[in-house]
């Protein structure tokens, strides 16, 4: 049996007046915040640290530049002591360099050690 127009109009009027239960929206907001907190906990520790650090640094005011200069000085000093000096470098065994001398063709019978021969393609 098909509903009449009057019956359908009454149902629509009832739907329009329908409201959630008391405290529904309060529960929804609580649940939403709970989800947000859980997501923030899942972010990597390092990122969290940097974000916290930057927040802390930006809140420091003009003194942050003094702290920054001190940190830079400490980094340079640390690098100076950690990089090996020349003497240390000399002690490290050098890997042999493979040097292939060019084959020379003497155009004269000159066997002196200083004589330079011709290199590269030779035409006969």
């Amino acid at each position: 049996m098909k509903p009449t127009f009057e019956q359908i109009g009454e149902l629509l009027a009832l739907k329009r007046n329908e409201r959630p239960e008391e405290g529904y929206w309060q529960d929804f907001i609580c649940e939403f915040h709970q989800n947000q907190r859980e997501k923030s906990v899942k972010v990597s520790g390092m990122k969290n640290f940097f974000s916290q650090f930057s927040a802390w640094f930006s809140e420091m005011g003009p003194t942050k530049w003094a702290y920054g200069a001190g940190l830079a000085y400490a980094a340079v000093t640390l690098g100076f002591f950690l990089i090996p000096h020349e003497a240390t470098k000399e002690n490290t065994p050098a890997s042999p360099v493979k040097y292939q001398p060019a084959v020379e063709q003497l155009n004269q019978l000159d066997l002196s050690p200083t004589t330079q021969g011709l290199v590269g393609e030779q035409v006969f």
Partner: protein
Amino acid sequence: MVDLEIPNRGWSVRVLFFMSLCFSLCHGQPSTDSSRWKVNFPALPDGKTSESTAVSVNERSAALVIVATGADATNATLKLGNHNVPVKMIGYDSVSRLGFIQASGGIAPETLNWSEAASKNENAALHAVEGGKSTTAQCAGWVKQVGGKILPFALLRVNFSQTVPTPGTPLFDNAERVVAVVFQSANSGNVGYAIPAEAVHRVKRDIFNGGLLNRGWLGIALRPESQTPKISRVLPGSPAEAAGVKQDDVLLSIGTRQIKEYADAANAFFYLIPGQSVDVKLRRGGEQLALSLTPIKP
């Protein structure tokens, strides 16, 4: 009959021995000693003087000398005993450092029996005579490179029993034929380098025909650093191109000389004569080719 003939033969032997003794005493030294012919060359600017024994080449009353690096080949002085004799330089080849001189007055060194080529036996026994003293020597193979540099032609390495003789001193085989001449000391004990007889003949041929050595040119390019004697390029319009030689062909032999490496090829090319065809064997891919090439003047 027999008893009568034996004394006669004995006398003949004695007479012959006496005559040969007189001959030797008259000449003072063995016939193979060329030490009386010493030629000195002054130094070029920033160079050094050099001395060479002059060896007869049995032609035009000429003698062969070796001019060391840094010496002036055009201003030679021949010392015969205590006398200086003016000499004329017929020709000098800077590649082999061989020069050919003629002494004024028509005097000539004693003729020698030259071999066509050095012995193929790389350990052949040799000897040299200098200053009346004989020095034994032994061939120790061919030298194609010195100090990592490839020579224009191969020399003989010779181990002498005593000090290396003066450059130019002839080296004789057991048949008293000149097979090589001393080139220079190897600065290593009594070891020296010698120029083979065939190189002397090759240079003499051109020097006597025009005063200059004319190398035969085929138009083949090779790379010394290559492991095999592979032809890297054939020059257009060259005798090699005309004969059908192609790039990447590998040389197997030139004339009678086997080619195993670049230095062998360089040595073989030294002996090419312009206008005289030479048989060349090649390997192209998996097949062998035999071609006849006629070198020209470069």
